[in-house]
């Protein structure tokens, strides 16, 4: 049971209010019609499944209905940061974990 900080509500809330929507920072190709089948197939089907640091989208489904990003360690289930759509993650390396604790504190 995760405890997630919604960057829009500004509060930690229980996992029951959220659900995940997969890998973050995937953009819909600018020109879908110019994509090859392979490129389009990559966009709609292929996702990373890392052991360790992962950026993913969650939605505060029964809260503010906002989508936001989560940096999570898929091995320990630590949430290292949450941040709004359109902004970049601060943590892109598990060695930055310490930094994340300071950010969260």
């Amino acid at each position, binding site marked *: 049971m995760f405890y997630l900080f919604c960057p829009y509500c500004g509060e930690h809330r229980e996992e029951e209010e959220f659900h995940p929507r997969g890998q973050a920072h995937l953009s819909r190709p600018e020109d879908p019609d110019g994509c090859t089948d392979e490129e389009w197939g990559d966009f709609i089907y292929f996702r990373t499944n890392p052991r360790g640091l992962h950026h993913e*989208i969650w939605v505060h489904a029964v809260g503010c209905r906002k989508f936001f990003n989560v940096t999570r360690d898929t091995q320990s289930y630590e949430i290292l940061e949450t941040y709004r759509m359109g902004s970049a993650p601060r943590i892109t390396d598990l060695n930055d974990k310490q930094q994340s604790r300071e950010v969260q504190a």
Partner: protein
Amino acid sequence: MTQRNRLDTGGRIDRGTPLGFKFNGQHYQGFAGDTLASALLANGVDVIGRSFKYSRPRGIVAASAEEPNAVFQLGATEATQVPNVRATQQELFDGLVSQPTSGWPGLKIDFMGVVGSLLGRMLPPGFYYKTFMFPQAAWDTYEKYIRKAAGLGRSPRKPDVDTYDHLNHHTDVLIVGAGPTGLSAALSAARAGARVILADEQAEMGGSLLDCTDKLDDKPAAEWVRGTLQELAGYDNVLLLPRATVNGYHDHNFLTIHERRTDHCADHAPTNLSRQRLHRVRARWVVLATGAHERPLVYGHNDLPGCMLASAVSTYINRYAVVPGRKLVLMTTNDNAYRTAFDWQDAGREVVAIVDTRAYATGAWQAEAERRGLKILKGMAVIEARGRQRVTGAVVAGLTSDGNRVTGDRQILNCDTLASSGGWSPVVHLSCHTGSRPVWDDDAIGFLPGKTVQQQLVAGAVNGRYSLSDCLTDGASIGAEAATKAGFPAKPATVPFVRTRPEIGAMALFCVPHPKPNSRAPKQFVDFQTDVTAAAIELATREGFESIEHIKRYTAMGFGTDQGKLGNINGMAVAAKSLNQTIPETGTTIFRPNYTPVTFGAIAGRHCNDLFDPIRYSAMHEWHVRNGARFEDVGQWKRPWYFPKADETMQQALNRECLATRESVGILDASTLGKIDIQGKDAREFLGRIYTNAWAKLPVGKCRYGLMCKEDGMVFDDGVTSCMGENHFVMTTTTGGAAGVLEWLELYHQTEWPELDVYMNTVTDHWATMTLAGPNARKLLAELTDDIDLDRDRFRFMDWRQGTVAGVPARVFRISFTGELSYEINVQANYGLHVWETLFDHGAKYKLTPYGTETMHILRAEKGFIIAGQDTDGSVHPYDLGMSWAVKEDKPFSFIGKRGMKREDCVRANRKQLVGIKTKDPSVVLPEGAQAVDNPDHPLPVPMLGHITSSYYSACLGRSIALGVIKGGHNRMGDTVHYPLADGRIVEAEICNTIFLDPEGERQNV
């Protein structure tokens, strides 16, 4: 029956409150303060069950959660049956009824003794592993006998009479365990003002202090416990939870606590009280003060009743005033267990000998034993127990200093109780629940909690600090640390002084060697509950299982409801020795929630019966109930399914509803359709991107049907969207898809196109929607409105109008899902019932007929209208549906699904395509899901063409109709296909157009 093992004085029981109880059909008596286990021991009940595999008699071994044998079925009535209750944790109450869960067909009738050896041969180590390799059929045969014989308990066959609650908490410090460590930790944290929850699995808090003979500040330990609890109870910021087992440690410091609130009162909970509670706690910091379980030594026939944990014997004597025998032999690897011999002697019973495995055991404890005149056999061990139903003797021999071999002569000591102590195993279970692996510690001779990412601290015996004085000081300082970390600067509480003797080093011994190899020695049990012996573990390693996780699965060690609390470390030690490894090299298995079994009642809480899932009702629900509707669940909605009259069958009701609608006028409650209000200056552009068709030119006052696809080009929802104003639309979705569609729209708006000025929200519950359909729909509606011009050429098909219906503001949409002249009237939900009833007041002369979802399905299928999610399944694109008219390829923006439906696989010939299906025999209604084949005589496997998605009997057409997908179906009009059914029939059918009725669409234009 007399309590022949009960002492006249002492203990924490109330001799003035006798309690009657039943075990295995016999009546017994115990006292208030007893557990079921202590009461059975007081009555001298030796055999409490028979073992799982070998059917050997078993007795009570432990006094706490780690008990492997005394696991009972409780309950005086069918509705109050509870399986898997450890007698050591069940408080006695008057009228308690318990049954052994093992020992079929009875403890005394030794049926299994006869077949036990047979079953033993049937169930060699690796039995499960090998059985699961066999065909399923073989397993089915064994399974019912094994289950019955193994005694896994059973669930009640009647509904539970009790209620269970869930409680949610946030706390600064959760302390698990209220022994000396937990209590002193709680003092430190509570005094600093932190919100503290202190949970303990026992009825009385105090843990080992309740049976401890050491003095704290020269006073009985129980006095310090009383004072401490009194202080803690006085703090508003402290919640004390006795009878509450912290069973699960989940991510981000979320812990679940199972409180047996009234299980000690009676067979079921007193009126107006819940039986159990599940506390869901989010803690800033957690202090694990879970203590340690004593580890028994493994030796021959160590499962005989009378073989017990040394500390358990002391607990029974000191806390419950029960001496579970007359003549004690104590075997120990450490000084701590000497207490048991002293307690036994102080209770006035005979200590035959203390068998100390250490030749070097010369210190304060040995001096005290000698002062008391007790015989100590040093450098020796009990290699096997003698006896049939109970221990009658102990075979003792010398032991080499490394503990690996037996030396010298053997002697037999007569005794009826054989207590053993191999040291302590820290209760690391909770620390493992979130994935942390425990680490071996040579000084503690046990696994200690490993590194964790949780905000968790460990204190006392669970961290290898076994002595009472270490527990108190460690608890106080860790409690202060936890409070400080949680934001409440704290100082360690002052702890009492413990007067005790210094201890000398313990010996790391797990399995006592036998002169014979283990495979031929008397059985040396490692895991009592699953009947795993040392020899079985050695066999597993010989068969090539080297990983401890594999050995566990091969032997079933630790698979019981006790999760191997008593036996796992000994099993690992046996495996390590057999593999010529150290214990840390062998590693440990991982513990998972729950620590002890939790009832389904506690897990379900109030989420059962009416509260299992929210139910949604439309504003007209009451009317539907009054008018005899049969309901169907659609998502959480209750929708009228059909409205049978007196003796009608379902089909008769459907026929009547269909004909009445097509001949005059019918009415459907369509309130449950999803409705999403979409506004903003880019709303139109947004619609164009998420629908497959065109929206750029839809004028105000008009409606349009749209298909929604995912990026792979497959249809996932559909509905009519209406233009309310230049920047304002109302979208409808399928009933079940409403929430998903709204989230889908938000996802694209928030992540892909945040620059679009568009806002959306659900308005599903705001509106009551009623659909009038049939040739008389206009005449009826005209009677209820005077400000909406219903003229057929001015209020045209796919128009909507704002006005007044039955005196209330309404939006009326001329749209049709039946092919009939049809008006969808939307009014504020609170007016819904009024408008509905007014329609019926005026509708009698038109035979206004209510219809439900089933008639709606038939009427739309007659017209070939799809239902997303029924005729589509995520693998069907608009062209497969024959709906190219709903795809506008030349929109400037590459709408969602456009690129997907152009992929190679989506444009190939022979895709499954939606067609109409007419059976050759018009009376046969195909089952939905039936598979089409070209040639039913084709040798197996027969190539499949596709399946039936919708199938009904159409009263209007006087025949069956169906929709289905067929490979290349659009080019196979008129072909014959066959549907072989599960009952052996083969139904011949013809492929046809999806529109069965009124292909020109004339009916809606009347």
